[in-house]
């Protein structure tokens, strides 16, 4: 895979760079994302305390966090299944997320759906469905409403490279590009869709190569460098908000796990994991911040403890939550007033 990468990993000059507070926020949310997912996948799932499957975005935290940090309160987001950071940054609590994974009544879907299939329009988060790429026309539709009503809102849409093979992806991006809708399509290109590598997913090295076919900008970015993510996302979101239309921003990264917790990813050459381990996005930001003096090691350790405590609390809380009542199974299929 590595020789197919077209991204320059060493870009150092950005149009937009985060201030100190933003850097600290991003570091916090990346760590919190890693912590909650590690806890879910490596502890709770293995202990049998999770109901159903677990899909994590380990190694890909910079993409969700470095993009979602630019969202305004009224913006709408349609995340995918490796975007835990988006949920946390939207203000959805770790407690509700763990409760969701445990199938509890106070999870985001009240036990109706599992894991990352969660949303809440009070936080402007559209829930994902298993049919990858379905959220592309849906995000375009939200952006259409913003344009119709003259609102300065944008929609952000996240997908993996596998989802780009689905017709909905094409139809949605084509529609959004014709009407210059305020939406940004982020591609988390983590090299594998379940067991399917890039070269069996598409005949090109970059999803962004399709952007000219829609007459929109396409950019390939190092998805493990949160400063690059921050910069590219800001430019694409600003462009969308200005009325200039959608963009495709493709983040090259690597899925440091199997497709889900049950999958040992035996089909991935082990050296790729080794190679990408060296590019860990959290470690990279920590090192940069240590070097420029934004943080001390003591501060980093404190942040880590803080995240762990938040998740401890969330797990304790979630496990005390009731399951939904069986007799409620038929409720809310339709509006009930």
């Amino acid at each position, binding site marked *: 895979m590595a020789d197919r990468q077209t991204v320059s990993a060493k870009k150092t000059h950005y149009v937009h760079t985060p201030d100190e507070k933003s850097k600290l926020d991003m570091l916090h949310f990346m760590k919190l994302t890693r912590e909650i997912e590690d806890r879910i996948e490596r502890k709770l799932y293995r202990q049998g305390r999770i109901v159903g499957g677990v899909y994590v975005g380990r190694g890909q935290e910079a993409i969700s966090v470095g993009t979602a940090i630019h969202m305004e309160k009224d913006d709408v987001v349609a995340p995918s299944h490796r975007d835990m950071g988006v949920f946390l940054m939207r203000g959805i609590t770790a407690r509700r997320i763990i409760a969701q994974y445990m199938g509890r009544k106070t999870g985001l879907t009240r036990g109706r759906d599992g894991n990352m299939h969660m949303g809440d329009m009070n936080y402007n988060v559209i829930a994902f469905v298993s049919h990858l790429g379905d959220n592309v026309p849906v995000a375009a539709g939200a952006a259409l409403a913003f344009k119709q009503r003259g609102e300065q809102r944008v929609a952000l849409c996240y997908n993996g490279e596998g989802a780009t093979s689905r017709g909905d992806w094409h139809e949605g991006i084509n529609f959004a590009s014709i009407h210059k809708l305020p939406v940004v399509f982020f591609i988390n290109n983590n090299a594998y869709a379940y067991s399917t590598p890039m070269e069996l997913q598409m*005949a*090109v090295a970059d999803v962004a190569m399709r952007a000219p076919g829609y007459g929109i900008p396409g950019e390939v970015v190092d998805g493990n460098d949160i400063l690059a993510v921050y910069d590219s996302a800001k430019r694409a979101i600003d462009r969308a908000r200005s009325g200039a239309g959608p963009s495709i921003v493709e983040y090259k990264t690597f899925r440091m796990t199997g497709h889900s917790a049950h999958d040992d990813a035996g089909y991935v050459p082990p050296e790729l994991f080794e190679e990408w381990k060296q590019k860990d996005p959290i470690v990279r930001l920590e090192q940069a911040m240590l070097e420029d003096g934004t943080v001390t090691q003591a501060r980093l350790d404190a942040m880590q403890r803080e995240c762990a405590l938040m998740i401890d609390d969330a797990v304790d809380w979630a496990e005390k939550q009731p399951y939904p009542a069986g007799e409620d199974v038929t409720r809310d299929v339709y509006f009930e007033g």
Partner: protein
Amino acid sequence: MNPSTSDAYSLSVPAGLTLDRTGFLELYYFMALNRKLEERLGHLYRQGKVVGGLYSSLGQEACSVGSAYALERGDFLAPMIRNLGALMVRGVKPVDVMAQYCARAIGPTRGKDLNVHFGWVDRGLIAPISVVGALIPVMAGIALEMKMKSKPNVALTYIGDGGMSTTDFHEGMNFAGVHRLPFILIVENNGYAYSTPTSLQANVTDLVTRAPGYGAYGESVDGNNVLAVLDAVRRGRARCLAGEGPVMIEARTFRRKGHAEHDDAGYVPRALVAEWEKKDPLDAYRRYLLANHTVDSEQDIGEIDAKIAVILEDAANEALAAPFPDPSIARENVYG
């Protein structure tokens, strides 16, 4: 139209195109047959003999004929609604088309389906459905079999500017690209999908800009120049056989009539139609044949036209003499 006026549309001949005199004349024959068959169907439509809609490819004959003429034995083709010319090249008889359009028992589907919705797998012809784009993954599948069995063949189908917006276009092209299939997609960019102009169909004017995104070779040609289309598809075919993957050829042309006979296309600016009338592919090709002395005189062309007239007269008589299907066949062949 006077061929000597300097601003007249004239065909340029692609460098390297080889074609003998028979070939030059066959291209004329098929384009003229395409045109005249549709004119005849127009008469039948107005006489109330055609059941259902009638679709015209007026002005697009070069695209259908040039592309199908580039194919060889064993290749597969699937037409869209405006590719009657391609069917003629592939050996479909005018009587088949007339009987099908008139819902008769001797039509290829015996009255079960309409217009060009018919095919014969053993003759390399796949029947289209009304859902545009659906043929692309299907023809990619046929190309997959060709690749698996190392056959020296290609699968070719067509898509309009409208069909480029579909799920199946995207999924089918992507699949063909991933597996480097011997698949040729002719993009007939004819300006309108029903009433929808290409500007509301895509945010690009050159639809072939989508080819690289699928790892496909892309090329744009003058779709009204039968020689240019033939040459591009022949070269595309050679690429496919060399294992270089799928080819997308955008043929720039124009739909000079409505979506179907009932549609007066009032939404199309008249000036645009007039502009394209001047680029009529059949007239231009006729002028080319005379100017290059492929034929000695209008008389040679007249002989071809006369032959077509006889074929169509016989075909119309045969089709209209045929009965409607017996109701009993309505339940046949749902399963094998």
